[in-house]
């Protein structure tokens, strides 16, 4: 694993600012064109528009001609990047150098999957990019042209528009964070028509060097603009969290949101963190005889089908919510428009704070449930003992 965390933390960060006369997209692609041509990478994982369709998809790009369809900032998130990356990078050795250009939430997912041994990050250079958000998938599929156009406008202005995906509207982690997630970050929020390259690891540094860029430019302007946007979005996020915490305070509140659920498990299949080959809630472990179901029905008067819908959501939550990166892929994939992304993000926010854990921030942070401290959460034991313990330790 690469790591020169200290170095990047102690030195004030510097980067390389490139002019983007032909537009940001073009310039970003140019950097990768060069990297491929110079054999710095053998292939690049990047979103692309499928020719003759309105659909977007990830491609592993090697042939230069494919840059024509590549798009670093597509209007929709199709497959979550972390999921895409894991689909080919966990089943064996690889003698190719691969770079992946992904949104920060996708990078975070990739880091979580790395911790779960579903992605081999030794094989891949992670490159993150400032993300203006994306449009809801269904909206886009219903009217690709219109939604595509409006996305263009929104993304140029870094507007927190109501027509963005809810997850994106409430996202305060859309840019580089102070951690060891990506190797290189591409800053876009800074000066107009400029692309800022920020190395975030020794690999990132090497990369810039190989590209012939010296990271001497000050990042001040990018940082200040980023901070401003982060603040704005954090405010929006806090409001969202408050609203939804209110909404779900009543016991039924949470479940009522899930009334429409049809058990398709699309949320789980779109979720990058749900990496299981077979979901526990799809397995035969939870089948019972008809009498058991009738007994249950008699107790409550009625039994909802498909069975175990609530068990599925709560259970899935217990499995993955500590690693939830709030990417909203689940909500995008839901055919009955349940705000499942918002629900999970809200619960995730609370539980992650409990463990002081930010999923995907650092590659080194252990997963909360794979780790423990002996002296934490003593309040869940008998409160008296807890107090004693605390006073003892104080001595």
């Amino acid at each position, binding site marked *: 694993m690469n790591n020169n965390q200290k170095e990047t933390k102690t030195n004030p960060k510097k980067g390389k600012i490139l002019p983007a006369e032909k537009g940001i997209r073009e310039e970003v692609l140019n950097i990768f064109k060069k990297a491929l041509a110079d054999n710095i990478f053998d292939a690049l994982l990047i979103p692309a528009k*499928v020719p003759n369709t309105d659909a977007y*998809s990830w*491609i592993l790009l090697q042939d230069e001609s*494919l840059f024509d369809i590549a798009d670093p900032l597509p209007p929709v998130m199709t497959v979550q990047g972390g999921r895409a990356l894991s689909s080919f990078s966990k089943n064996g050795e690889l003698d190719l150098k691969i770079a992946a250009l992904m949104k920060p939430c996708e990078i975070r997912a990739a880091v979580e999957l790395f911790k779960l041994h579903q992605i081999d990050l030794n094989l891949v250079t992670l490159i993150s990019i400032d993300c203006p958000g994306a449009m809801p998938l269904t909206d886009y599929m219903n009217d690709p042209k219109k939604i595509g156009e409006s996305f263009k406008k929104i993304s140029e202005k870094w507007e927190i528009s109501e027509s963005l995906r809810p997850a994106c509207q409430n996202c305060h982690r859309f840019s580089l964070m102070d951690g060891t997630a990506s190797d290189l970050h591409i800053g876009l929020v800074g000066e107009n028509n400029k692309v800022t390259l920020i190395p975030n690891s020794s690999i990132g540094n090497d990369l810039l060097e190989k590209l012939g860029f010296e990271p001497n430019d000050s990042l001040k302007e990018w940082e200040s603009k980023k901070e401003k946007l982060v603040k704005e979005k954090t405010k929006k996020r806090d409001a969202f969290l408050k609203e939804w915490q209110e909404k779900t305070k009543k016991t039924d509140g949470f479940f009522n949101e899930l009334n429409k659920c049809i058990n398709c498990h699309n949320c789980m299949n779109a979720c990058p963190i749900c990496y299981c080959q077979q979901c526990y809630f799809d397995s035969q472990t939870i089948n019972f005889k008809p009498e058991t179901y009738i007994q249950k029905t008699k107790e409550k008067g009625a039994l909802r089908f498909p069975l175990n819908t609530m068990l599925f959501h709560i259970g899935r939550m217990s499995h993955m919510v500590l690693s939830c990166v709030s990417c909203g892929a689940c909500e995008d994939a839901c055919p009955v428009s349940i705000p499942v992304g918002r629900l999970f993000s809200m619960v995730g926010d609370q539980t992650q704070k409990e463990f002081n854990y930010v999923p995907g921030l650092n590659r080194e942070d252990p997963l909360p449930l794979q780790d423990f401290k002996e002296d934490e959460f003593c309040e869940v034991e008998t409160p008296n003992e807890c107090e004693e313990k605390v006073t003892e330790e104080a001595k």
Partner: protein
Amino acid sequence: MNNKQIPNIIGFLCNWCSYTGADLAGTSRMKIPPSLKTIRVMCSGRIDPLFVLKSFLKGADGVMMMGCHPGDCHYQKGNYNARRRYVMLNDIFKTLGLEEKRIGLWWVSASEASRFAKVTNEYNEEVKKLGTNPAKEEIFL
């Protein structure tokens, strides 16, 4: 490695009839197209339609399924299952406008070396006419 080798044909041969027939064709020094790569399975019933699909989607220009003639299956009836599976694949290909000729089924017995030579050569020519399988270079599969 020669990627441009055209055509590239995969043959799934049942152990008892077709593979033996192919051996006999070799022993009799019959000329068989080098494009054909044979894969031995115990029975044509073992040929999972997914193998055929996967071969096609991975770029095989042609896929040959071969087994014993009906009634002669070493395992009694395996080839009847194979036949149904082929009919199904063929129908799916036709309905979706895929080139159904890229897959085929032939019965070749252990003694029919000349039939083996005939059908493989004929199929080779047919696949040549079809040209390269578009799946070979299709990125978005």
